[in-house]
């Protein structure tokens, strides 16, 4: 701004004078600012009217805006507007939309589901979400499990059986795998013998002499392994005792060890220490029967069942 302009400007004061010559400039707020400020008052009052605002007694003033939804029991619920009610509205809406599909699957036999493309497509998408929410924490997102902790659900080896019915039982009631440790019962040599025998069952490299002695221990009352794993060592699904003759190892890190000594040592560790960590929680009560049915088919299809 030019000097002339500054000089020509008359400065407005409030008109008061203190102490003879103390004056106060009058610089009012810009008009647009003042009106915007008033507008915020109007906005606040409108907002309080529409949305929940003030605490009132034990509750609060709910406002004019409502959220209405139908819950899973078919009851119509109305809340004053709040984000939790919006969340419930969304969840219930989604549940109602999914219901016909869950009902359809629930009314079908496993055999019918496996032949129905629409039901299978529903299982693939909803099962994937249910599996990711509830199962993937242990069994991993693709169902591949973790060796030494959680079984692989994508292979063809099922500890408790891979039929629809047994998978459903596993999901509903959970499983508790247990194997006693033989470190206190048997001598180190006997455990070596057993480890070599177990290695021989699935064709791994082993000491034939030790394995021969292990064969005896396995089948007599000293170790009595046959009691759970069966005389043919192919396991017993009713108690979850694994098949020792195949190439799948859940508890012993056999496949992760390149050397044959290491493989035998891994088996030896399991025999010596036993196992108490094969625990699968029960899902009955946590998930609905329809959801468990969806998961049953989903898990069955992961590994193709048996």
């Amino acid at each position, binding site marked *: 701004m030019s000097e002339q302009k500054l000089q020509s400007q008359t400065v407005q004061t409030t008109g008061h004078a203190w102490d003879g010559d103390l004056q106060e400039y009058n610089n009012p707020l810009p008009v647009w600012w003042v009106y915007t400020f008033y507008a915020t008052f109007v906005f606040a009052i409108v907002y309080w009217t529409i949305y929940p605002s003030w605490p009132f007694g034990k509750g609060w003033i709910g406002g004019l805006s409502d959220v209405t939804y139908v819950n899973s029991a078919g009851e119509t619920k109305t809340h004053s507007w709040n984000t939790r009610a919006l969340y419930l509205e969304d969840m219930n809406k989604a549940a109602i939309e999914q219901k016909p599909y869950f009902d359809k699957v629930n009314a079908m036999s496993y055999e019918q589901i496996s032949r129905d493309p629409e039901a299978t497509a529903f299982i693939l998408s909803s099962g994937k979400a249910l599996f990711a929410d509830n199962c993937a924490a242990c069994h991993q997102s693709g169902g591949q499990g973790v060796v030494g902790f959680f079984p692989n659900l*994508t292979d063809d080896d099922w500890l408790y059986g891979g039929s629809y019915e047994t998978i459903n039982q596993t999901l509903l009631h959970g499983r508790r795998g247990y194997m006693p440790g033989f470190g206190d019962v048997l001598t180190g040599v006997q455990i070596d013998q057993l480890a070599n025998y177990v290695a021989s069952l699935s064709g791994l490299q082993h000491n034939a002499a030790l394995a021969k002695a292990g064969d005896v221990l396995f089948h007599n009352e000293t170790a009595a392994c046959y009691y759970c794993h069966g005389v043919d060592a192919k396991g017993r699904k009713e108690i979850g005792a694994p098949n020792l003759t195949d190439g799948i190892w859940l508890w012993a890190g056999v496949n992760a060890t390149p050397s044959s000594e290491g493989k035998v040592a891994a088996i030896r560790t399991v025999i010596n220490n036993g196992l108490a960590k094969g625990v699968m929680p029960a899902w009955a009560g946590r998930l609905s029967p329809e959801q468990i049915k969806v998961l049953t088919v989903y898990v069955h299809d992961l590994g*193709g069942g048996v």
Partner: protein
Amino acid sequence: MQPGIEDQLGLYQKRIPIFTRSVKGPFRRFKTSVLVLAYATFFLLPWVPWARPDAPAQAVLFDVMGRRFLLFGLTVYPQDVIWLALLLFIAAILLFFVTGLVGRAFCGYFCFQTLWTDFFIWIESKIQGERPARVRLFRQPWNQEKLLKIGSTHAAWLLVSFWTGMTFAAYFAYAPDLVLAFFTGQAAAAAYITVSILTLATYAAAGLMREQICTYICPYGRFQSVMYEPETLAVHYDAARGEGTHGRASVRAGRGIVVERRGRELAESTVVQERRRVNRNSGERALAERHEQGLGDCIDCGLCVQVCPVGIDIRDGLQYKCISCGLCIDACNTIMDSFDFPRGLIRYDSEKNLALPSPAPVKLEWKRLKIIGYGVALVLMSAYLVYSISTRGSFDRAVSQVRQPLYVVLSNGDIRNRYQIRITNKAAEPQTYTFSARGIPESALDLGHFREITIKPGHSGLVQASVHLPPDLASKIHQFEILITPNGKPDETRVEVVHFDKPSLRP
């Protein structure tokens, strides 16, 4: 003012109203034909019926809810987005190509801003009269006449704007149902919102803002300007001819004679033809007289300014506001004809040609690297689009390997890989698809109970496939093919190559 302190210029300029005079001539005729053709297409297309078995009988329908565009016999699904990309690419290249050749032809003749503004000006002139009447009406105080004329003009604009918005919305829903629902209050909220916004936008853009859109808002006009080359044809005023050495001057006694001007209406009769021949001589004489006095051919009648829809004076040279509509050419030629001066004082010409001491006849110079490059790109892209649409399959497929886990070792040592096959039926009727494998034993492919699957039109189906191979075979097979065959159409079989993963061969 002190030195060094600049004058404060406002960034806002109040619109100077423009009242265009109507004009006749080839450019006006061309603009009118484009307008009629474009309006006929835009307003009538949603009402063209087209029988379909599974969709509304509307020839052009952008079915957003159904995630498909129905264009006559063609159904476009979201997977075909490459076509849209190609179309946009072709449109862009076409714009570059045309602009390089003949300047902002798009702006002047085809742009919807120009078309709607042109139509609105036509309405304005039909209600309020020709330019002088409109200027008078603008200047006179508000009275009953002004209120009636201005009011009815705006009402007519709003009506056209509304139908423009309505027609746009009709492309997105079955038109007869939509219009009925719209007026009975039954249509979706989106329809009312779309129509309202478009009505207001059309009214504001074509009725109130007009050339300001082109001057201040539109980016296309700006970037087309940088595509001009010295050889590009554009609307130019031949300043050398028009200004002479002493500038332009109106026709007055002693500075070029006034000749018979009423002859044009009767131009067809032979008598008049004869007189024109004589007049032509008098025109030549008049020009010679002007040239002797150092005057140019421009008689400064100002008609070129009066007809300009963006309110510029083309005689100031090529300028960014010019939308290259050619109306000033028509206007100037009308005047030149009436004096029997040669036409083309304002004409399509190139900067390069005009810079010559004596400009050569106008010709389109297309033998330039840029033009040929754009031309080739245009032809290639259009050919690819046509090829891509004409060879489209009746279904879409995607085969993806399950990657978690990549492979599974089974209890007997076999290796299993799993795949998900997703099929989208793009045909108009339900279709059954069968699957088979090539490159692995036929028995290795396990599809559960879904060796074939039937899919409804416009729907997708998902099939899980698993392949298990014995270790010796697995180590040899790195990839194989999955064949998808629509039943009864073996020539439409599609082959997808997929990988087969196995435990690493690392030691």
